[in-house]
């Protein structure tokens, strides 16, 4: 711990006085003498990102929240009237539905709770298995095994493939009568075949294996970068103090990598919440592979759209995503405020 803080303070001291202070002073002077052209440039540079942010993040997000209180099939316009009960859906379009969509999702939509559960399982598997596995690979490779480069490439290979392609590759592995696993273990007959992707008790785990296969490589690369950046003198110091490799890693290296750990935590949460591609490729996210993202898609994108209902599901996903994001933002900004 003490090694970290020592490593940081001198750097901060050496950075700030020369490099940082002067531009601040200069900027202040420029502010006072800003010409009309400068103002336009500033307005453009600030305005365009702001507009883009409003147009592509805030407008859709707030729009979704509003739409989630309506019943709408995507045709025609919305109106403020409340939906009349017991009317054909074509006549009852674009009306105000209150919290009915949420109520229906939680009570009569059989896919909803499985989807929430699967999203949480997905997150847990990424946090408990994929990330530590990636870290393990990184630590092992960082120790300079023979052929490190080859292992590194092999483990990183899945990260370079698109998830859609990964889904297709694993289809060949899992297919019941023609797949690799069942053929190798001799269970590709018609009575004894293991239905890896069709059995709702098996398929989530089968797909999570695919996802882990890729995610571990991703995490590994991030950790390798982090490990390479760790000051070698720290290891030497730990060695001098008589720490074994286990202690060196957990007491010295791991704490130093705190920034990279945060990156990986965020990546893990985002990757698990946006999980979609693999299950969609596998069976369109039905029968044991329900995920919130898939339910949103299957309700909003399609021939007849239940835009209101799908938006309600989207809002649920948004709320779930906000939890880790809020925690992270809070942590980050609090650290910046207290220098």
């Amino acid at each position, binding site marked *: 711990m003490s090694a970290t803080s020592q490593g940081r303070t001198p*750097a901060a001291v050496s950075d700030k006085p020369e490099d940082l202070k002067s531009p601040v002073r200069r900027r202040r002077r420029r502010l006072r003498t800003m010409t009309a052209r400068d103002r336009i440039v500033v307005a453009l540079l600030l305005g365009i990102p702001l507009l883009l942010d409003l147009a592509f993040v805030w407008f859709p997000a707030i729009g979704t929240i509003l739409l989630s209180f309506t019943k709408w099939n995507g045709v025609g316009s919305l109106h403020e009237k409340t939906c009349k009960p017991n009317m054909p859906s074509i006549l009852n379009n674009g009306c105000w539905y209150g919290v009915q969509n949420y109520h229906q999702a939680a009570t009569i939509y059989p896919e909803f709770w499985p989807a929430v559960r699967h999203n949480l399982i997905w997150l847990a598997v990424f946090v408990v298995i994929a990330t530590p596995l990636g870290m393990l690979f990184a630590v092992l490779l960082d120790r300079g095994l023979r052929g490190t480069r080859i292992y590194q490439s092999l483990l990183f290979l899945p990260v370079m493939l698109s998830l859609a392609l990964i889904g297709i590759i694993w289809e060949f592995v899992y297919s019941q009568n023609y797949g690799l696993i069942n053929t190798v273990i001799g269970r590709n007959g018609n009575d004894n075949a293991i239905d890896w992707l069709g059995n709702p008790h098996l398929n989530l785990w089968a797909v999570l294996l695919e996802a882990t296969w890729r995610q571990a490589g991703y995490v590994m690369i991030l950790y390798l970068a982090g490990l390479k950046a760790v000051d070698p003198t720290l290891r030497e110091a730990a060695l001098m103090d008589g720490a074994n490799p286990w202690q060196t890693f957990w007491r010295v290296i791991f704490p130093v990598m705190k920034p990279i750990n945060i990156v990986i935590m965020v990546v893990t949460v985002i990757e698990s919440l946006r999980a979609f591609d693999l299950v969609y490729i596998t069976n369109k996210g039905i029968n044991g592979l329900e995920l919130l993202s898939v339910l949103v898609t299957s309700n909003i*994108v399609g021939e007849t759209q*239940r835009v209101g209902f799908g938006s309600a599901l989207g809002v649920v996903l948004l709320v779930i995503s906000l939890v880790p994001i809020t925690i992270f*933002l809070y942590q980050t900004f609090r650290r910046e405020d207290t220098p």
Partner: protein
Amino acid sequence: MSEVESSGTTGSPLSATRRNLLKGVGVAGLTAAGGGLLAACGGSGDKKKDSGSKKPVAGSTVTFGSNYSDAAPKAAFAALTTAATASSKVKVKINTVDHNTFQNNITSYLQGTPDDLFTWFAGYRMQYFAAQGLVEPIDDVWEKIGGSFSPAAKKLSTGLDGHQYLVPIYNYPWVVFYNKSEFAKRHYTIPTTWDEYIALAKQMKKDGLIPIAFADKDGWPALGTFDILNMRINGYDYHNKLMTHKIPWTDQGVHTVFQHWAELMPYMQTGANGRLWQDAAKSLEAKQAGMMFQGTNQVAAQYVTDKADLADLDFFTFPAVNPQWGQDYMDAPTDGFMLSKKAKNTDAAKAILEYIGTGPAESTYLKTDQWDVGLVSGLQVPTYNAIQKKSVEEIAKCKAVAQFMDRDSDPAMANAMIAICQKFIDDPSTSNITKLQQSAEKQAKAIYS
């Protein structure tokens, strides 16, 4: 020196975190709301059309949105439009879109800037879009082509308001396929009743065959089994009422359908939820399976794709269950063409539709297509194979043909039933059937009200 370096490198991931985070927020916001935005974009219902002035049709160009994205139908469709141009002097510009994408985007497509003509399906699926004013009625086209179609075909092209909206091109029956050689070798006879069907399945199982090849990974194939059992047990009117939720899903009739299906389950290929229908068709081709219930558009087309012995393939209509209905009905989904409300060149588009609604047009299309059959009455297509000839006969024998669950009902309900049928395949017990019926009814109430 080394200290500065180390702090520099630990510093940069920090800012990367922030960037990643912002990206994350953006992505989350977009995925959550992208659909809403997309849908909102196409929302305006304005239409600019000059219906008064009639322009000369010849020499103008009509755009045609097509979901015939696979090689064989694409070639057949190109032949059809070339012939249409030759006949009507109207140029056709085809915009082909992958068929799943086409279907998924249909709502925003029709509200945005659609092509003049587009490929679509008959049944409630057509009526639904017609009812929302996204499609132009083509009664005047039907006045000219009506003579060559049966009343049933006209009914399939008619919207809920009584106007015609579709020109059909082909349909294909859902029937039980088998290999002639296999039946001859083992002296199996064609079953015509439920008991004979079960007995045959039992015999096949004894002979080491999978009696009924079955796959439902895509979700929709099993809906066909539900449909046929429903029509055999409860009849065509019941099917229609159930599909439009005029009969509750908790009805005893639905229970009986699932019970018959449960009786069939021991003879159907296990693990259907993880198998693609193409693989099930392969087990029929390989003579590991004795029968397979599916559309010719799938099974016969797969035999053609696999270059299997198409001459050995044959089919029979699903056996009778309830003597009241016998073998009167079947699923024979019909595909056809519609005119967008926002079409820019309506008159020329109608000229194209008039040509498509003729015998020569259909036979031009069916030269390349070896599994579907045309709808023009008395149509003679020299290129028909045995399967196609028999399809025409069997469809003609029917008192009514249904369009398949996802075309006869609200697609949201079809989606709900996809999940329910898969759960039934996992557990066909009576207690589960009751539970699934209740779930279906609750969802139907939410979808249809």
